[in-house]
Every structure is written in C-alpha cells, then in structure tokens.
C-alpha cells in the first residue's frame, strides 16, 4: 500500500511537469493554430538560464527564476516575430517543420554558450523530503503539484475572467472577427509565445531540479508530453492538465507494476505506454478527451 501511495505521489509530480509542458503547447496552439515542437528546447533554454542566474551569478532563487522567465519569454517572442509570423497562413507542414528546425538551433546555441556538461540549477528543494505517514514525499513533489495548481488557477482566471484572455480566445476562434473588434492577432500571437516561454521555465525549475540538472537531453521531456496534449485535446487547457497527470501516472504505474511483472514487454515499456494510450484514445475520440471537433467545409 505504501508503495502504491509512493508511486501515486511520484506519478502526480511528474505528471505535473508534463502538464506544464503540455500547457505550453496548448497555449500556442489555441492562439496560433501551430504546434510548437520546440517547446522542449524552451525548457532546456529556461533551465540553462536558471543555472546562469542562480548558480553562476548566485542570485537568490526566486529572483533568478523571475529573470529566467523574463528572458525566455523574450526569446520566445523574438522567435515568434522572426520565424513564425512570416509563416502565418502557410500549410501546416511548414509550421511543424520550422519549429523542428528551431529545436536544433536553440539547443546548439545553448551548448555553444554553456557547454555539454551536466549543470545544476541551484533550486532550493534539492533532495529534501518530508514524511507524510508512511510515505516519503519529496519537497520537489510538493512544489510540482503546488506550482502546477497555481498555474492552472492563474490560467483559468486569465482565460475566463480577464479581458486579455477573452481576447485571446476570440482571436483563436475567428481572427477576422476579432480584428474587426480591434484585437490585434499579432499581439495575441506574441503574448501566447511569451506565456509558453514562461511555462517552459516553470517546467524546467521542476524537471532539472536537484541532482538531475540540465543537459541537452532535457528537451526530450517535450516528446513525453505530446501524448498529454493530444489526450486532452490540443486546444483545451483543462485537457492539457488532465492529460499530463494521466500520462505521468501511467508512466510511473507502468514502471512500478507492469515492467517487473511482464518483462517480455521490455525494460522501458513505461516510456512508450503513454503513446499506446494516446493512439488508443485517438482512435476512439479523434480530437482527444476535451478537444473541440474540427468542422471542415469543402
């Protein structure tokens, strides 16, 4: 029983990180209709910036985190302005590929600046743990779940209650009508990329914490979060969160219960299990659990 609870907490914690990455995907997709395959690279950039501010420049962590969020958001907005804006209206294929190209550029620039060694980000929760009954909960887990919950609430307030959020939803649903109301799609696009950049840094804070550190392989986390985004529906923020948690739990539970008992599945079946789950769900519900069905006209 304690094992189960332990795995549950761990699954929720890692699911929270996936949820943050998936949220980053969804924010950009809702506003611009593009999937940002480079979200993982933004996470990597955010983590390296955290290292730079919190370790190399020895700023207090909250300040370093804020600085990293601002810089990453700025880089994301720059990317949107230089690379994505000229491609508005181009076929889907172009935007997918251009964000893939960005992955290479961003990661190699990071490696050029910070090198290839594993670097630590100087987070305050490290390997500290707290005992809750029989279960050992990492401070990291508490922060993951807490931060993600805070982000989700903030997003809810942003999208449902604030004018800006409503403007973003309007621009996503009908750009021409939104333009007629004076909502500039350009601002919306830039803002959505900035938000995604910020989310990437929050995810980085958790994913690269303690001894895990940051190196170029951190970007792979985005590929783990894809099933989360698809599962939840590409344009649904609640879906991203639910999807992230589901995927995190699936992965950890599969690793904990499936792999030891069914070795024929392979040693890291828990990594591909989310994709299997995603494919199964897509076949049943092609737009994900919470996504809106696309209406296509001839």
């Amino acid at each position, binding site marked *: 029983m304690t*094992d189960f609870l*332990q*795995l549950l907490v*761990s699954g929720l914690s*890692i699911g929270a990180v996936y949820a943050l990455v998936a949220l980053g995907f969804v924010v950009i997709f809702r506003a611009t209709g593009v999937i940002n395959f480079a979200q993982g690279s933004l996470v990597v950039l955010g983590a390296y910036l955290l290292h730079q501010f919190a370790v190399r420049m020895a700023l207090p962590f909250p300040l370093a985190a804020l600085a990293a969020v601002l810089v990453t958001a700025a880089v994301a907005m720059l990317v949107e302005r230089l690379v994505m804006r000229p491609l508005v209206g181009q076929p889907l294929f172009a935007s997918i590929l251009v964000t893939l190209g960005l992955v290479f550029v961003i990661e190699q620039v990071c*490696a050029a600046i910070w090198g*290839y*060694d*594993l670097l*630590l980000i100087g987070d305050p929760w*490290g*390997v500290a*743990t707290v005992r809750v009954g029989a279960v*050992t909960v*990492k401070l*990291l887990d508490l922060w993951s779940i807490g931060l993600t919950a805070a982000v989700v609430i903030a997003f809810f307030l942003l999208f449902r209650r604030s004018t800006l959020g409503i403007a973003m939803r309007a621009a996503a649903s009908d750009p021409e009508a939104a333009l007629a109301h004076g909502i500039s799609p350009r601002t919306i696009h830039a803002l959505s990329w900035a938000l995604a950049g910020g989310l990437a840094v929050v995810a980085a804070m958790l*994913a690269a914490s*303690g*001894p*895990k*550190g940051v*190196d*170029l*392989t951190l970007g*792979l*986390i985005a590929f*783990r979060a894809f099933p989360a985004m698809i599962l939840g529906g590409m344009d649904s923020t609640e879906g991203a969160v639910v999807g992230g948690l589901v995927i995190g739990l699936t*992965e*950890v539970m599969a*690793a*904990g219960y499936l*792999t*030891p008992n069914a070795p024929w599945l392979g*040693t*890291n079946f*828990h*990594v591909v299990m989310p994709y299997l789950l995603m494919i199964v769900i897509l076949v049943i519900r092609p737009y994900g659990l919470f996504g809106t069905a696309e209406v296509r006209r001839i």
Partner: protein
Amino acid sequence: MSPSRLVSLITLGALAAVACGGGAAGTAATPGVSGDTITVGVLTPLSDPVAVIGRPLLRSMQVYFARVNAAGGIGGRYQVRVQEEDITYANPSTSVQKYQKIKDQVALLGMVVGTDHINGLLPLLREDGMVATPGTLDAEWVRTPNLLSVWVPYQLQIINGVGYFLGQPGNAGKTICSMVLATGYGEAAEEGLMSAAASEGFTPGPRVRFRQDDQDFVAPITQLRNGNCDAVILASLPAVTGKVLGAAAQLGWSPRWIMTSPSWHGALAQSSLADYLTRTAWIVSEGPVWGDTTDAGMREMLAAVAQYAPDQQPDLYFTAGWSVAQTVGALLEQAVRSGDLTRTGILTALEAMEPFSPAGWGEYRYGPIGTREPPRANTIFRVNPAAPIGLEVEARNVSVPAAQSYQFTAGR
C-alpha cells in the same frame, strides 16, 4: 542580396572549398605515416552528454603526445599527430561512418569510446587490418584480434567490488542486486555480477535496467528496495548517475552502491547528493588519484599538464586517457623498433609486444591472442568532496580469487 541568391552563393562557395581541401596523409603502403609523422585516430564523443568523458580522454592523449614529440618523438624520430573525430555515443553507426572517413589517414585508432561502437567497427577493422584501442572495458575485448585493450574489464571490476563488499566484516550472505544501463556496457557489468554469484555461491537479487534518457527512477528503486538489496552494482554514465542516486536518496534508501568507473563524475561530489554519496558510494576503478604525488607516473602527468594544458581541471577521465596514451605510445615504439609501420607491421607489433604497465596502472600482457591477460586488481574509491576529483582511496589492489581465476574466451 535576395535570400535565394545568398543560398546559391553559399552552396557554390562550399563546393569550391572542398575542391581545395583534403590532402593525402601517408603513402599507400603505410597509411597514416607520412614522412616522420604518425597519425593516430581518436573516435570520441565531443558534443553530447558523454562528452564529459570524451573530451578529457582526447585532451590527455593530445597532451601526452605533445610531451613525447617535444622529447624527440617515438623512437627518437617520429612525431605523433592526433586526429580526432566527433561521434555520437548514443549511435554506434556514427563511429562506422567516421572510421570510413579517416581510415586512410591514420596508422591506428588510439581510442574508440563505446562498447557498441567497437562492435560496429570490428568487421571493418578486420577487413582493413587496423588496430584500435577500445575506450571501454568489456571482457570480450581482451582476446579479440585487432584490439589493443586497456584497463581492467568491467566484469572483473564488478567481481572485485562485490568480493570486497562481501569480504567486509558482517557482510557475508547479504543480497546484491544490479541497476545497469540497457547497453552492451551495462550487460558487461551484469555479467560480472552473475559470474561473481556463480563463484561465490550466492543468488543475486532483482536486476534492473534503465536507459540514458529515463526521467523518473522511483519505480526501479522501489523494486530494488522491495528486493531487500543490501548492495547494488551500478553501471551508468555521469549524466544519469545523479538522477538515479537522487531518486534513491529522496526515497531514503541507502544500500551500498558499487559503481563502475564511467558512472562517476567529479561534479557529483559537489552537488546536493554529496552527503548521501559519502555514506553509500564506492567507485571501482584503477590507477593513481589526481594529485597523488607519491606516484611517479602521476608526477609526470601533472608536470605535462602544467606545461601543455594548465587550464585542465582535475579529472578522472584525463588520468584514464593518460594511461591509454602511454599504451599506444608503447605499441608505436614496438612497431618502430621492428621497422615496420604498415598496418600489418603494427598488428605484428601488437602480437610481439611485451607486457606493459602504464605508470601507476596494472600490467597488461599483450602478445599472442590466446595468452593476453588484463590486470586483475582494482582500486576501490570512496567519495570525499574535499578531494580533487571527489574521490579518495578506500582500498588498493583489490583482487579477489574469483577475479583472478576468471577465464577469458577468444573473442570474435
């Protein structure tokens, strides 16, 4: 200038550049030897997470041969040039491709990093009659033709580590498990555990495998903890070791971690895991510790570092590379002595080579394939954050009977 014109110009420029590039290295008969210069090839990762091992290995070879060249060269005549090629550790095919690229320009390969990379190259080495030095310690390489093997094999590392653990007072009968990377390197470590189990007569506990890009280790650690493991052998890489041990530390589980040499990186001793590592970690390796000036070989190395690479930080892998460079130098000396620097000549030199021990390291017996013997004694290190590479000696010259009686079979 419009972008498409720019693209065309760049393409033309690149094509022009290659037209002026390239140059033969060596004659047809003695590839890699041109005039009085011998070229030694090095295939090592320089741009991926394993570069933390690859770069110092390369650097130490460069520094060693700089020193040899300054002292007159091999046999007092030949200067050595190191030609490095960047490979991707995670993809063995990159070695095959780089090998094809440089094979006509090098006399031998002074270092190839990665068990799976050596596997890929073996058929080609045989075809071309080239000698290569594996930068990996699988027991299979001891008696494989075309390989100039170095260091104590992983299998023996594990046997010695396990034997030492079981030999500690009160440890008899404890459960030993394994947590290894799912690659040829990890398999070698697991083989060591099974071999130790067979000769010491115990049944190992749960054996878990993981991958370089895994993010979460709670599940495998829980599995090991539930198996009541008292000691766990770990075959990992520096970038992942922190994550694995971090998970264990957070779950509050402290077995004795017995890790192979490539699992360690100095930065771990400076991380938030330092305390946990000091209590639980042993690293099985060999050779002198950086800065240990009682060792003559280490003194020479430090002098060379001060002269040719003053910015080099203390590094376990630099010391390891230094020993390889000495071995390669010894092979080249043998070939020069017999006056034959062709591929066949170098192969023959390998078969005629005397037992050689790099300064401060164990003796490796080369010569005819059937009788090659690696050193069989390891040094076990424990963690001390205050030491230069974060390690200090726990026990020297550990060589348990099972390690001494280990049989090496003829390789492929």
